[in-house]
């Protein structure tokens, strides 16, 4: 009897340790665990033209303080907009209805998060409310594309003028470039 008691004790502590480890993994290493046991919350939605690579679980912050997280992201096929559902801490329930939400990037290439800037209305957002003023994500590729387009354009101009200068000293060469640059000067 003595032996079976120590045996059961050993088995019990092993199983307990195992489940403690599982519990640690699900609650401490993920953000999802926080929402199960977390403080009371309420949900609001915001519609964006483009959310970039915003992910579920991304933080929502006001003045840099985390007030909630992105709960769900869906696509509205009537308006062609992304519908982002935010889960905000009940403590921060005084967000004016005319506040605006924008998508920012953490660092230069970091993950995206939503920043809410408070408006001036006297009424506050409630559960299932919606933020009407939104600003889309800043998409780095678009910016790079624009810069690149400008850059190549100015480079092409440079080449044209260089070709024009060469054509002046040697009139037979590159008549095309010559006329082109003339058109441009006109």
């Amino acid at each position: 009897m003595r032996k079976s008691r120590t045996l059961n004790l050993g088995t019990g502590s092993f199983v307990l340790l195992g489940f403690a480890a599982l519990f640690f993994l699900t609650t401490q290493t993920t953000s999802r665990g926080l929402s199960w046991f977390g403080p009371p919350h309420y949900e609001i939605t915001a519609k964006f033209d483009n959310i970039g690579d915003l992910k579920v679980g991304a933080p929502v912050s006001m003045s840099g303080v985390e007030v909630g997280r992105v709960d769900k992201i869906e696509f509205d096929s009537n308006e062609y907009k992304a519908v982002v559902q935010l889960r905000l801490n009940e403590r921060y329930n005084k967000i004016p209805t005319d506040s605006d939400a924008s998508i920012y990037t953490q660092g230069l290439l970091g993950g995206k998060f939503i920043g809410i800037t408070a408006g001036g209305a006297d009424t506050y957002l409630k559960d299932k409310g919606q933020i009407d003023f939104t600003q889309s994500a800043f998409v780095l590729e678009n910016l790079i594309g624009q810069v690149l387009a400008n850059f190549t354009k100015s480079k092409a101009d440079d080449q044209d003028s260089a070709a024009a200068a060469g054509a002046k000293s040697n009139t037979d060469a590159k008549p095309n470039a010559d006329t082109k640059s003339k058109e441009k000067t006109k």
Partner: protein
Amino acid sequence: MFKELWESFTDALEGLGSVVHFLFRLLVHSPPALLRFSLISQQIFNSGAFSLVIIMLSGLFVGMVLGLQGFQLLQRFGSEEALGTAATIGLVKELGPVVTALLFAGRAGTALASELGLMRATDQISAMEMMAVDPIQRVVVPRFLGGVISMPLLAAIFSVIGIYGAQLVGVQIMGVDSGSFWSQMRSAVGLSDITEGIVKSIAFGIACSLIAVYQGYYATPTAEGVGRATTRTVVTSAVVILFLDYLITAAFL
């Protein structure tokens, strides 16, 4: 030569078929075996609790190596803060289940196989049959279920110790910021990553225990046969674990 190839192919098929048949027999006998939980509890103690030391030590070192290697690699891109994410995802999804299963096959699988093999060699299994005690239900199923239950718990313990190992090296020695180590991990690791790890460890637990129990139960009843069964347990388990790992990873993508 062609005939020999064909024969070895049919032999392999026959082996596979008999493993599947054995698995079904075990499953049929599992519900009644659950009623006598003390037998299973003893096996959980044997294969789980006794593997704890080796699992924890290996987890610590694997985590520390991950911390060191991850730090060296991430430092090149100036993103040491992602160390927590890298180590946790690596441990929870891959290293935890796979290394635990390999160690489990080496530590508990061989013990199961040699124990059952020796029971077969010393006619204990036949004796049970004579006494109208079903050896499958009395001996094999508790060992199988004990292994299946222990494996996910061991894998979870391995991952947790590994994360602390990575934290030990990354934060305490290499000086990664502790806050960003944990917060980046929390924002990047999802519940699906944990689920994938758990599914893997359950699958590996079933595979490992089944192979060990099968090899032991059908071992040739000689000293050499028991030795061969033990060797085969480790080899087959390792291959099957890595193969299943690929399948489950692909299924979860």
